[in-house]
């Protein structure tokens, strides 16, 4: 349809995508390998310690959370829920676009690949 497309963006090749994914995995795994004896917690308590090391007079937080997950299990469930919600929205969009593309395929065209 469009005649003067400047530079139609090209789809990344599988190699590029795989390289990107591997790089992300390595970046996340690297600390796990080199740092021993850590649970990678980064708990909220540590934040208070950080402030106390600067200002020993700092007392405590003046208000608590409205509600707190009773434990790690519930917390991780809720984090998973958050990720599911986001993943669903992303997957829905790409699925929708894929279906749209498929519906626009010329009926004479028998190829099933998209």
């Amino acid at each position, binding site marked *: 349809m469009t005649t003067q*497309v*400047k*530079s*139609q*963006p090209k*789809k*990344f090749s599988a190699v590029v*995508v795989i390289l*990107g*994914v591997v*790089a*992300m995995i390595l*970046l*996340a795994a*690297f*600390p*796990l390998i*080199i*740092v021993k004896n*850590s649970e*990678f*917690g*980064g*708990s*909220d308590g*540590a*934040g*208070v*310690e*950080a*402030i106390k*090391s*600067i*200002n020993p007079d*700092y007392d405590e*937080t*003046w*208000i*608590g*959370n*409205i*509600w*707190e*997950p009773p434990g790690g299990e519930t917390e991780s469930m*809720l984090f*998973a829920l*958050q*990720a599911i*919600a*986001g*993943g*669903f*929205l*992303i997957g*829905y*969009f*790409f699925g929708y*676009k*894929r279906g749209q*593309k498929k519906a626009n395929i010329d009926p004479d065209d028998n190829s099933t690949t998209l």
Partner: protein
Amino acid sequence: MSFIKRIRWGWLLAAAMLLSVRVAWAYPIAAPPKMHIMEGFLPLGWAVFWWVVALPFWVLGFIQVRKLIGERPELRLLLGLAGGFVFVLSALKIPSVTGSSSHPTGTGLGTILFGPFVVAILGTIALVFQAVLLAHGGISTLGANSMSMAISGPLVAYGLWLLLKGKIPTWLSVFLIAFVADLSTYIMTTTQLALAFPDPMGGFMASWLKFAGIFAVTQIPLAISEGILTVLIFNALQTNATIELKQLGLQEV
């Protein structure tokens, strides 16, 4: 000549990186303060201050989201995707070399697609979810946390986007935008903490450098990861969601 200069710069960079790792490890606190400032953590005055600062951005963002949905309802799904991206990424707590975990922000993608004010709303929704259900961040600190993750990060990134768009390869500009949105979030959090808790000896700057030193080590690898992921998903959008991106004027950037 230029080659030798380059080597010198390389050494300087390596030394600076080593130094920052040492600085981070020199402090007894293994875990840096999280990106979301916890409930009740900021003194009341600062908590109110950041709420007031964030408020106009929320209003502007709300108006823009309403306008977007009203005028171009076909972009709702893409808006959902941008929000979903923030949701997924801010749920992923990734280990760092400081022995703690932190998470990316996911705001770079939405910033490119819809601009910083719409992202202010998307980011704040994620923050409210985490504050209310996960005790991660808080309502009193929602203003401050929104300011860093949902407002200042996207604003800085958007400025950069306008500057770079079309001048360098798309993948590079998208990478830089996501990288910068992520990092400037933490720079803002650092500033907020240093303002509220200045070092009794060195004042604001000493406090700032202390937090920033820790954050930099934790956050730079994360920001790189986020950059890569955003590049991949933006490419998928450019090749799959041609119509939407054309409407947003992003097909040929």
